[in-house]
């Protein structure tokens, strides 16, 4: 092992939330191998909130999809909550929120939130009780019987978050969940997401295009570069939790922001 002993001990004492060890991913397009992720090494302790930022085509969504067991690695190892992504998914330890809320249009809000529990085989009474609590948590109490198309984009995304939380996941994977929302809604949802995370403490991998969003939410920001997709650097955000909107004016916030901006400028891609 090339890692030094102090780092190894530290790794043992803290449980692994998400980890990538020499992860390589290639896609073959018309017989040509295309390197999407080049030797990704990443270690996220259990319960930490980490964001990934990078230009389009840097493979950040691919990395998330590997953790979600939606695609396999080409080589290397991915670890989710201390076990393989396959086992973690089978054990229902994952919650995923995509850029599109992706709600079933024929299901009421309540039944959309309860869908993962329904799949799990939970009874209707317990299911509805949990779903109601979660809707309250995301600020949508009173909308149980509505259909998704009656809600705004921000409200739909809240429903998607409630749905992802319904099985009490240990790991929450979020792929640009607020990317399609306006700035005001986005900042409000950032605040709400942090308070939910503070209460439930899942490990979060949060993919975003927005530097302030990444800094505001996370304790660490993974900056990726494109062609091939690789980790350029990991930036620590020295701001204590719980954070409120005032954190956005903190010197440490600006320091992290400019550091990330500088890294992205050299990261390549579009």
């Amino acid at each position, binding site marked *: 092992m090339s890692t030094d002993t102090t780092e190894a001990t530290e790794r043992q004492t803290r449980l692994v939330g998400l980890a990538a060890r020499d992860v390589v991913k290639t896609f073959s397009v018309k017989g040509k191998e295309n390197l999407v992720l080049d030797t990704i090494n990443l270690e996220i302790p259990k319960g930490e909130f980490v964001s990934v930022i990078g230009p389009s085509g840097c493979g950040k969504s691919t990395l998330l999809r590997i953790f979600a067991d939606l695609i396999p690695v080409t080589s290397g190892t991915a670890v989710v909550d201390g076990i393989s992504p396959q086992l973690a998914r089978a054990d229902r330890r994952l919650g995923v929120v995509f850029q599109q809320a992706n709600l079933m249009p*024929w299901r009421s809000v309540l039944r959309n939130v309860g*869908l993962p529990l329904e799949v799990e085989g939970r009874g209707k009474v317990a299911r509805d009780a949990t779903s109601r609590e979660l809707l309250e948590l995301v600020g949508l109490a009173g909308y149980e019987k509505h*259909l998704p198309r009656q809600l705004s984009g921000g409200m739909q995304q809240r429903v998607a978050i409630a749905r992802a939380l319904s099985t009490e996941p240990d790991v929450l994977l979020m792929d640009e969940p607020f990317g399609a929302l306006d700035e005001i809604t986005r900042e409000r949802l950032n605040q709400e997401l942090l308070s939910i995370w503070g209460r439930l403490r899942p490990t979060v991998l949060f993919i975003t295009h927005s530097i302030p969003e990444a800094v505001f939410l996370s304790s660490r920001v993974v900056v990726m570069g494109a062609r091939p997709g690789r980790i350029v650097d990991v930036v620590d955000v020295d701001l204590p939790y719980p954070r409120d909107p005032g954190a956005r004016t903190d010197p440490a916030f600006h320091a992290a922001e400019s550091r990330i901006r500088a890294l992205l400028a050299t990261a390549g891609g579009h």
Partner: protein
Amino acid sequence: MTAAQVVGARPAVASPAWGSGWVRVRRVAARWGVAAVMGVAFVVGLCLLWELAKLVTGTDDSLMPHSWAVFAQLGEPAGPDGTWLTYIAENWVVTLRNAVAGFLAGSLLGVALGVWIASNRVVGAALLPITALMQTIPIVAIAPAMVLFLGTGWEIKAAIAAFLTFFPVTVATAKGIASTSAESLELMRVCAASRWQTLVKVRLPSALPLIFVGLETAAGVAVIGAIVAELPFGATEGLGMVILTSWQYYTIQPTSLYLAAIASCALGAFVVFAVRAIRTLVPAAADPKGA
């Protein structure tokens, strides 16, 4: 409870789109009311055109009877026990039973086959061309042969209706299931859903709008199938039999053939609108574009 009361009780929240069962029933009733008015207007318009054509061409009454004469025929006696109204109605119900039985059986078969085709590429590649080929078999040609094999029972007529029903339903189901959004399927995968759960909770509901398009098409051809099945083999009941006998007596009494034709149209419209009415009761079947 009406929508207004819901809003009153909770002013901050708009009312849900799908109200109580009563609201839904009223919506369907309104739809049927509009359809009935349009239907009557259509018939009146057709009669006017008919009379105009008759006037312009100066066609003789024995070839082209007056439209009111066709409807007057309903009151005239048909045989020893009843008028043409009861005679047509009795046979209408017979054909309706055959068509609906065939339609239901064919639809179930079609959905099952569509699911199978969509879930397995090899099955799809093998079955879809065969089902398309089967559709080209001229039903009028093989119906007498089927009767020779299987007898003249109503089940055979239903089977012919079913035969015509299943193809559009199969294609619509297979296409509908294939069009399920990839994101929804990924969501189910993340939830570790079984194949069956994914089918029932996501694939089939996603396919419902298209399945209903197939069902509406199939409803029309099921009625045609049921009538055609009654044509060739000296049937003793059904609208097909009425059409056949009326046709033989056309030179003596042309009105009865038109009456039979109108009854057939009414049957087709009835079944198609019934399918549409059912569609409005199923939330997931609504067109995603809101049409």
